[in-house]
């Protein structure tokens, strides 16, 4: 393993911010894995740390294929993580809205450019990502439909679901989009949580990546446990939003991954002062809980739960 400084940014009163990369094997730039880019993406960094731990073992056992190199960058934004801020510490911009970056531009454009210059040549790009909607997800692989998305490779993670979605204008400056445009096979991995550690879903994600590495001939190892699904491929239309009309105290009555039947209670919203039930959210169809709101308070007009139709997908 080689530990390299991918990018360094100097500051006036803080230690320089170093983006550190861990390189395993040598030769063809096969796979790059990126962890947290936002200051709250603790689970994403944690999952990378588990992956680095595992790759150390594989390298020691000489189970990384000859002529293949793997790069893991656990954290791109340690400055924001250290002060508990989601976006860039001074101007609140999002590094994951700055790709491919600009080395003569503003600070986060420079960070994006510095990192992208190193990672754009990898054949496969994997990002541990988070969603702007706060809540719990069923682990899945997500890809934007750019025309370059590679669904067959995505299935090799053996996650329960591969989700593709239409590209929106603001997506064009994300890492995933730009990787695809630069002809890297790019995949966003969503584990269950973001701001809290979920050891099980991090472990499952690491095993899924190891499974992909085996399928691609980049490592030759035995993967014990983890997911073994034939991934169901979904698009936005296969996810059914259950929206709330009321606001108040929010409590789930189902769990992520639970198969529910039409009419089953999914969540309740209660009056924050008097405790009475304001609204019951029920499943509009048979399906699997794919996403659920997690915070104890909820606004009205929020997609609180998303279901996968049982009949949907491939």
């Amino acid at each position, binding site marked *: 393993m080689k530990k390299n400084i991918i990018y360094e*940014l*100097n*500051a*006036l*009163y803080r230690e320089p911010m170093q983006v550190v990369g861990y390189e395993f094997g040598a030769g063809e730039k096969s796979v790059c894995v990126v962890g947290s880019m936002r200051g709250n993406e603790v689970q994403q960094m944690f999952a990378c740390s588990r992956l680095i731990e595992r790759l150390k073992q594989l390298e020691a056992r000489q189970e990384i294929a000859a002529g293949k190199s793997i790069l893991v960058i656990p954290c791109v934004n340690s400055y924001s993580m250290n002060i508990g801020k*989601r*976006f860039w510490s*001074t*101007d*609140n911009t999002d590094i994951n*809205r700055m790709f491919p970056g600009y080395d*003569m*531009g*503003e*600070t*986060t*454009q*420079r960070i994006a450019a510095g990192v992208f210059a190193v990672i754009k040549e990898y054949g496969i790009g994997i990002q541990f990502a988070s969603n*702007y*909607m706060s809540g719990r997800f069923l682990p899945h692989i997500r890809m934007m439909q750019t025309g370059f998305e590679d669904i067959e490779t995505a299935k090799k993670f053996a996650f329960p679901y591969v989700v593709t979605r239409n590209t*929106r*204008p*603001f997506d*064009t*400056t994300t890492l995933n989009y730009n990787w695809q445009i630069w002809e890297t096979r790019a995949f966003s991995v969503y584990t269950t949580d973001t701001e809290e550690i979920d050891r099980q879903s991090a472990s499952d994600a690491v095993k899924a990546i190891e499974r992909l590495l085996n399928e691609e001939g980049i490592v030759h190892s035995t993967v014990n446990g983890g997911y073994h699904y034939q991934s169901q491929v979904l698009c936005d239309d296969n996810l059914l*939003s259950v*929206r709330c009309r*009321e*606001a*108040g*105290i929010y409590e789930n009555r189902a769990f992520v991954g639970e198969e529910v039947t039409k009419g089953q209670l999914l969540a309740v919203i209660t009056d*924050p*002062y008097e405790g009475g039930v304001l609204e019951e959210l029920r499943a509009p169809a048979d399906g699997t809980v794919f996403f659920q709101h997690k915070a104890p*308070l*909820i*606004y*009205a*007009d*929020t*997609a609180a739960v998303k279901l996968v139709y049982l009949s949907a997908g491939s």
Partner: protein
Amino acid sequence: MAREIKSELGSVCEVKLPIGETLAIKRNRILPVDTAQGKRKRIGIVTGIHGDELEGQYVCYEVLRRIREQPECLTGIVDVYPAMNPMGIDSMTRGIPGFDLDMNRIFPGSGDGAMTEYVAHKIIEELSGADLIVDIHASNIYLTEIPQIRINELHSDVLVPLACHMNVDFVWVHASSTVLESTLAYSLNSTGTPTLVVEAGVGMRITKAYGAQLADGLMNTMRTLGIWQGAAYPAREPIVDARADGVVFFNAPKAGIFVPEAKHWTTLERGDVVGRIVNPLTGDVLAEITTPERGILFTIREYPVVDEGSLVGRLLKR
């Protein structure tokens, strides 16, 4: 003959908040009380999409004050939306509090998405069809801008003639960028509602002179559109620049404290010093930022702390 006007207070949309409160995006519609037939012209004055940009608050007040002073001059509809992001304004937050989202990157929104997308969708529904929307911004808390209008080159044919009535100093026609397709202005312009984006002043402040300048421009523009019959205000002719390389960006080469030397909206010669980046711990000058050629400094850094790459100024080449 004296003409009466009426004020209709309403809201673009309302969303219940968890604890005993409803979020409402408020609108004040001012229109004449008469029986004139036919469709009236309509202008929408929008501000507060970014909760830390407050220059537009004074502009809204000043336009309403002028209309109330001469109600007989109003012949069309003036819709004023001073707080598109009311929770942001209330909490000194640029984005939408609770979501950490830039509201001007989620348009046109969706009737089926998260609450924020629903709100964006309702705003587009509300504003569509107006004869003109003016979206007033105030840069951010880091930079001071001379009153200017920014126009995507895709919509310049329609918008530049309108912008020239707005009494701004500068009209910047810039290249198209995919990411800007998520803005309010792009969404409206691309669906046939002309929308001007004004940048003036600095975040978290009101610069009264700029506010009065923009109010003059809005009254003149309303006059041109047939919404206002009052006397024209003296108006400046803006510099219109559509060159791909017409603007020099000054980015901090070092992290430190930026101390400006040049005055805002002055002509600088090649080699003039815009400012210095200094280290208060050691007393060193870390960098001196000079102009590569002659031009007018239309953006200047207001917030002194800079990272490597922070924008400290923009120069319009002359």
